[in-house]
């Protein structure tokens, strides 16, 4: 089947096409979902290479489950976020006690911004990542999904297999902890007191 307008095809339908042997569907799904998985893994792990490995592994699991995928039962993105979260949690557990390498903090500066502004943005993003790295796994996961991936609490609850109230609690505590971490660096990060 030709994918003339891939944007018009749902993730579910693309997965079914893939299960029926269409490699073009894999390309569309990779372009559409890969960046989200990479972003989530990057924020969860704070390490580029590991985040890429997790992205590859999460998508490999998606390819494998394609023949058994039941359309309409779950959102592909929800399933993928859950798999990514679990893969990240496994890796974090394995390296428990280790200190994240500051060199590996994501470098995501706006290329059109002036150099000093770029540097400040990068410093702030690095600071956010460092603060995220200090959070307990579950809090970090909830905060990333809520405030960076922009998901709603019910979907996060489904991904993390907890109640919506528990998600609210985790994100609130996470935000508070992040704020505490960042408060000490306000001046360094270029924030002015009112």
């Amino acid at each position, binding site marked *: 089947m030709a994918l003339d307008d891939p944007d018009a095809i749902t993730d579910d339908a693309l997965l079914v096409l893939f299960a029926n042997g269409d490699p073009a569907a894999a390309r569309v799904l990779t372009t559409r979902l890969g960046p989200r998985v990479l972003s989530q893994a990057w924020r969860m792990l704070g390490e580029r290479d590991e985040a*890429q490995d997790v992205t590859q592994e999460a998508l490999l699991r998606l390819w494998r489950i394609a023949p058994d995928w039941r359309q309409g039962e779950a959102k592909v993105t929800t399933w993928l976020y859950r798999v990514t979260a679990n893969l990240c949690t496994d890796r974090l557990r394995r390296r428990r006690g280790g200190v994240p390498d500051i060199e590996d903090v994501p470098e995501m500066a706006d290329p059109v911004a002036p150099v000093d502004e770029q540097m400040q943005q990068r410093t702030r993003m690095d600071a956010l990542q460092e603060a995220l790295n200090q959070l307990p796994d579950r809090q970090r996961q909830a905060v990333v999904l809520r405030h960076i991936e922009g998901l709603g609490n019910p979907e996060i609850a489904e991904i993390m297999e907890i109640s919506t109230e528990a998600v609210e609690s985790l994100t*609130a505590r996470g935000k508070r902890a992040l704020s505490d971490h960042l408060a000490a660096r306000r001046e360094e990060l270029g924030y002015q007191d009112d």
Partner: protein
Amino acid sequence: MTDDRKGGGVSTRAEADLDALFAQARTEAHGEQMALPEALSARILADADSVLAEQAAQTQVRRARQAPVRSGFWRQLLTSIGGTPALAGLAVATVAGIWVGIVPPAGLQAGLQTVMGTTGTDDLFDIYFVDSSDVFEFAQSEG
């Protein structure tokens, strides 16, 4: 949890800073900057191709296992007469019949002479195979 901030929430200023950071992170996460590196895309698509090849091979094996047994005329005939054991019995009976026809046992000949009232081999073959004599003559010979 002890917290000197009202309601346990972050202060408005810190919250605003954090929200601004989240907004920036969100923009980057969903923008072009988070596009997959080419090498990673290639790895992911290579995995997809491998999985497709694996699944195609598995499907082929499954189909081969599930392929229905062809049911032609001879197979149906064999089934209707009772399968292979019946075929063996039929073959034995056929060979025995041919053998008896070619070399009739002495006892069978004597019995036939008694029953049919004839002594000549030719007559016997006439009875066995094709009746070349006139039906009326045969009736007369029988009395």
